[in-house]
């Protein structure tokens, strides 16, 4: 699958409290989560972000709590993909499990600027800068995770495992 979108940039250690503050965790309604996504980092983000936009951030993205509401909020806000040098491990698992594409690529994360247009090939992990044509190669997913993603996430994968059908 190939995604093309406009970039929003964020710094290092964007934590799950900033992605979706606990004051909104009394509901897991996606629209409600999307309305407050990243507002403590940029109060205008929920109104600026559009479906298909891509977040490019610094290291350790998604550190902090295990709340799956964080990747859910990003996905519901329309974020198509997150690119960072590294992700916190629970966020990484959660994103894969719910089907939010994330890519680890330090060079791309460093070079790409806010407002740039980029495209991402999820199969190959290739990131292309639309204006300059520069490309970067993200770390490919291990084959087990590709299998998970291919099955449509962990729930579909587990359903197939325990019931024998998708």
């Amino acid at each position: 699958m190939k995604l093309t979108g406009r970039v929003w940039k964020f710094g290092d250690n964007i934590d799950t409290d900033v992605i979706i503050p606990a004051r909104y965790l009394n509901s897991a309604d996606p629209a409600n989560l999307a309305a407050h996504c990243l507002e403590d980092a940029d109060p205008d983000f929920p109104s600026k972000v559009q479906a298909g936009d891509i977040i490019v951030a610094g290291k350790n993205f998604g550190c902090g709590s295990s709340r799956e509401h964080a990747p859910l909020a990003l996905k519901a806000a329309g974020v198509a993909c997150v690119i960072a040098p590294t992700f916190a491990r629970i966020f990484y698992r959660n994103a894969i499990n719910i089907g939010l594409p994330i890519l680890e690529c330090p060079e791309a994360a460093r070079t790409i600027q806010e407002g740039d247009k980029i495209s991402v090939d999820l199969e190959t992990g290739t990131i292309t800068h639309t204006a300059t044509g520069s490309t970067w190669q993200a770390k490919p997913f291990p084959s087990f995770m590709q299998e998970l993603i291919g099955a449509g996430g962990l729930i579909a994968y587990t359903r197939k495992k325990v019931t024998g059908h998708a």
Partner: protein
Amino acid sequence: MGMTLTEKILAAHAGKERVEPGELVNCRVDLVLGNDITAPVAIEEFSKIGVKEVFDRDRVVLVPDHFVPNKDIKSAEQAKVLRDFARAQNLTYRFDVGTMGIEHCLLPEAGLVGPGDLVVGADSHTCTYGALGAFSTGVGSTDLAAAMATGEVWFKVPQTSKFTYHGKLQPWVSGKDLILYTIGEIGVDGALYQSMEFSGEAIARLSMDSRFTMANMAIEAGAKNGIFPVDEITESYIAHRLKRSYKVYRPDPDATYAAEYDFNVEEIEPQVAFPHLPENTKGISEAAGVVIDQVVIGSCTNGRLEDLRVAASILKGRKVHPEVRLIVIPGTQQIYLDALKEGIIEVLIQAGAAVSTPTCGPCLGGHMGILAKGERALATTNRNFVGRMGHPESEVYLAGPAIAAASSVLGRIASPVELGLKEVSTVA
């Protein structure tokens, strides 16, 4: 080649002789945990899997603790999803208002976790149980749903880094100061994807409560888990609690570590982490003086009996500063009761503290002590992220109970030494 403590537990639960870092393994779990924020999402996902019952009703524990006693209608509805599911599944261990506590204080106390166990919880501080020599780690709600259905979870075997602490603790230094100091040294991603194995003679002398505090904050260094060797202190803690048989694993002398760190604890003074990351640590001698509006003593990090004891020893016969709100939240009903019997609660109330029933409450900015714009809190909790305890322009400073209690009296970040208190070590 030998294996680390974490590698041994993962191998045993994957039914393998040995595992290597980087290997993907499917493991049997001994216990799965969810709370009132993460379980409702998991229950919804669970219903899509196609199984009717959880894999083992003795091994699924759902604890409503974050927004409980229900703070508003939406939270009440969420907690009800958890309660209804627990009842419908006839889960063996049920905890609620009146019997519950903060999950990570509660589960070890209730004897539901033991050495050598493999535990996953849809809460990032599930790593707390590493203090008992268990492998335990946080996962998300979807992972929780799959684990409730199958009793299995996939893991990538982490590399292990070893942290050895030498020497004798300085006065007023506890587990909280050691772990804050460590995170200050290695950073909030210093152990990313890794297991942190704690050892050394300073650790061997550390109380169980202080070990829980340290394992609890492994996640704040990005780690998958933090783990302690099992010794007599562990054995005596579990003696009257643990309801299952257990197995003690020890790291091999020739185990391979990604990194080895050695700390001389005699050089470590009480620590304070400045906003907005747990790695922004300073020794109290460089941190003193910051004026505060609120002090919180509680949470799964420092809401245990030892913490309340230390606070009471400082607050005894003193008064909380008139401009400071001191909120004390015992981690469980049992801790509350023990503190009551020891006279700790009376000392705290006489000093002017508000003492609450167990809840996560202000730790995650839920309820029971939210900060207004521009306000500053000193808390014994584990995270000082932007907006963690309330308004995005409020500030949280992290410290142990000794600094918290002394600061509540003086109205600014301070050491008990400033109150002329004897320089006695709080642990061992």
